[in-house]
């Protein structure tokens, strides 16, 4: 058991399944090891908002029973592709019987009456649900600092933010608390925290993964996607969740399996890069050096690098911070204190109930974006910003479509810089700028992945490359990412949680 606690975080999904088949460990032992690690390490990282040991153990026992029915060396057919994989979920995804708080006072007491399709698909595939993960309030933010439960800490440096909004989902994987997690990405909320925490984070093309049961704020931008410590693990989770769902009207029928594209290599692939995006003021020198080194590696593997232009990318942030708040104003009007959510008890009429409950229930960043969206949609203003933002979306989409006529994938930095310190960025506009490389992809509806490519030569912190594919041709992303990942050899688990905390003494203490 002690060995498993130590080794479990290093196991890939394939190794977990091989270990279960070979009877080296049981699913229940895996769940117990994962829960013990969370108990030991998460008080420092603070990635979990709720831990669900009963759900994890029950799921594990079901898998162990199924395994007991077949002979050693194999897994029964009813074991899915994620059988025995400890997973956890961003706390804006509903899971029946758990709190789904969106890290907001508004939903602090809300208990999910149903399960999001994305979570449900992982459970059908055999995942062990460990719990729910921290985020910026209602996913408004890039650092998890707006969570009312307090921020998550970056496992690579506890004084720094894990990124956001899916900061808990990224940190839990980097700290070896879960093998994979789910998050959501409206403007970079998977890819930016993945970059800050040195893990793989993938936002699927719009429509690939169901948003049913995800409490999003931007329905034309939102996607649910996985975090994992390797491209292969991210592919396995993607294959389990990228299924058609009639409950999400944007859901697409896709039959491609990402796991089929991991060993094809990139020889002859045309990979676009955008010289203008490497010249942006905010891009740190270490990030640029690492990205250029990654591009050289792709060339060495036989890919053809092609300089391309995305002329309207510079308007993407403005379009995003128009469309996002406008949709948030509309989406979050559902929080009326009547059907669910924080309600002020002493309101004397309905308007007072709305105003008092919403003012008390939402934090400052949420109020800022909702009010902004209300203003942007008002008569006389809507043509000036919202309409134009969606015209810009037409142009940004056309830029990508044009680019993908001459290349198979595009690479850019995932973030202008490595993880920043708590409190370092307080101005909302500066905070928004940290999404500059990721938001155009949401505006266009393409898929994008943050792939760890080592550590900054100045800061020593994790650094990532973003790989973007043609819309709904996300297998190109996995093909490039898997080939590039092979050229690197570095530890994916944050050292401070890997080495210093897992001592024999703490293990004995934890086991008792």
């Amino acid at each position, binding site marked *: 058991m002690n060995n498993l606690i130590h080794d479990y975080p290093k196991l890939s999904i394939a190794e977990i399944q091989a270990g279960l088949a070979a009877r080296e460990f049981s699913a229940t032992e895996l769940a117990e090891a994962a829960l013990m690690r969370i108990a030991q390490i998460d008080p420092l990282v603070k990635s979990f908002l709720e831990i669900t040991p009963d759900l994890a153990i029950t799921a594990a026992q079901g898998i162990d029973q199924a395994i007991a029915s077949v002979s050693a060396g194999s897994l029964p057919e009813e074991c899915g592709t994620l059988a025995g994989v400890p997973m956890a979920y961003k706390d804006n995804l509903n899971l029946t019987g758990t709190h789904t708080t969106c890290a907001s006072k508004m939903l602090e007491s809300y208990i999910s009456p149903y399960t999001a399709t994305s979570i449900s698909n992982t459970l059908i595939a055999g995942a062990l649900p460990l719990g729910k993960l921290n985020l910026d309030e209602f996913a408004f933010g890039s650092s998890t600092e707006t969570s009312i439960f307090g921020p998550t800490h970056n496992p690579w440096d506890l004084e720094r933010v894990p990124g956001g909004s899916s900061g808990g989902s990224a940190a839990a994987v980097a700290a070896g608390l879960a093998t994979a997690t789910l998050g959501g990405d409206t403007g970079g909320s998977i890819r930016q925290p993945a970059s800050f925490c040195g893990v793989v984070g993938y936002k699927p093309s719009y429509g690939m993964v169901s948003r049913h049961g995800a409490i999003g704020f931007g329905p034309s931008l939102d996607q649910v996607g996985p975090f994992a410590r390797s491209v292969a693990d991210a592919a396995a989770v993607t294959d389990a969740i990228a299924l058609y769902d009639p409950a999400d009207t944007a859901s697409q029928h896709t039959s491609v399996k990402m796991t089929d594209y991991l060993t094809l290599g990139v020889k002859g692939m045309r990979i676009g890069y955008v010289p203008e995006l490497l010249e942006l003021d905010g891009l740190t020198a270490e990030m640029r050096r690492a990205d250029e080194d990654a591009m050289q590696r792709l060339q060495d593997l036989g890919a053809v690098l092609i300089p391309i232009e995305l002329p309207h990318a510079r308007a993407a942030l403005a379009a995003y*911070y128009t469309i996002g708040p406008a949709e948030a104003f509309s989406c979050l009007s559902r929080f009326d204190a*009547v059907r669910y959510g924080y309600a002020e008890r002493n309101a004397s009429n309905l308007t007072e109930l709305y105003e008092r409950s919403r003012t008390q229930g939402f934090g400052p960043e949420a109020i800022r974006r909702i009010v902004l969206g209300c203003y942007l949609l008002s008569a006389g203003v809507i043509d000036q910003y919202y309409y*134009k933002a969606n015209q810009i979306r037409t142009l940004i989409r056309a830029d990508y479509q044009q680019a993908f006529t001459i290349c198979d994938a595009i690479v850019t930095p995932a973030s202008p810089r490595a993880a920043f310190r708590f409190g370092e960025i307080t101005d909302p506009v500066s905070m928004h700028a940290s999404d500059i490389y990721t938001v155009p992809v949401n505006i266009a509806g393409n898929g994008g992945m943050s792939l760890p490519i080592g550590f900054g030569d100045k800061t020593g912190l994790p650094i990532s490359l973003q790989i973007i594919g043609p819309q709904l041709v996300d297998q190109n992303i996995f093909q490039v990412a898997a080939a590039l990942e092979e050229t690197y050899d570095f530890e994916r688990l944050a050292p401070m949680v890997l080495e210093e905390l897992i001592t024999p003494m703490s293990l004995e203490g934890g086991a008792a």
Partner: protein
Amino acid sequence: MPLTDEQVSIAVSEAKFALSESDLAELKVDLNKIIESIEVLNEFDLSGVEPTYHPLADLQNVMREDVIQPSMPQSVALANAATHEDGQFKVPTILVDGGGDQ
């Protein structure tokens, strides 16, 4: 164009918030910074460009078969409500100034 005090107050009221004077003043400063940052939208010649409201440009009017699906039991749907009575959500007085039933 920077927002005026009145425009901020109207938007806050329309979005159903009740903020103090100092919160309104702070919000106005933040909103104007953001508005300034999105002015770049006005730097492009957009004449003749159709807007795109979601990324699946060909997708519209998604329908399903008109058949009854299983739905959430009433007790579950009411479980998160602050107040309910006789199987229904309960709200305070809707009309004020003596215009409605109490």
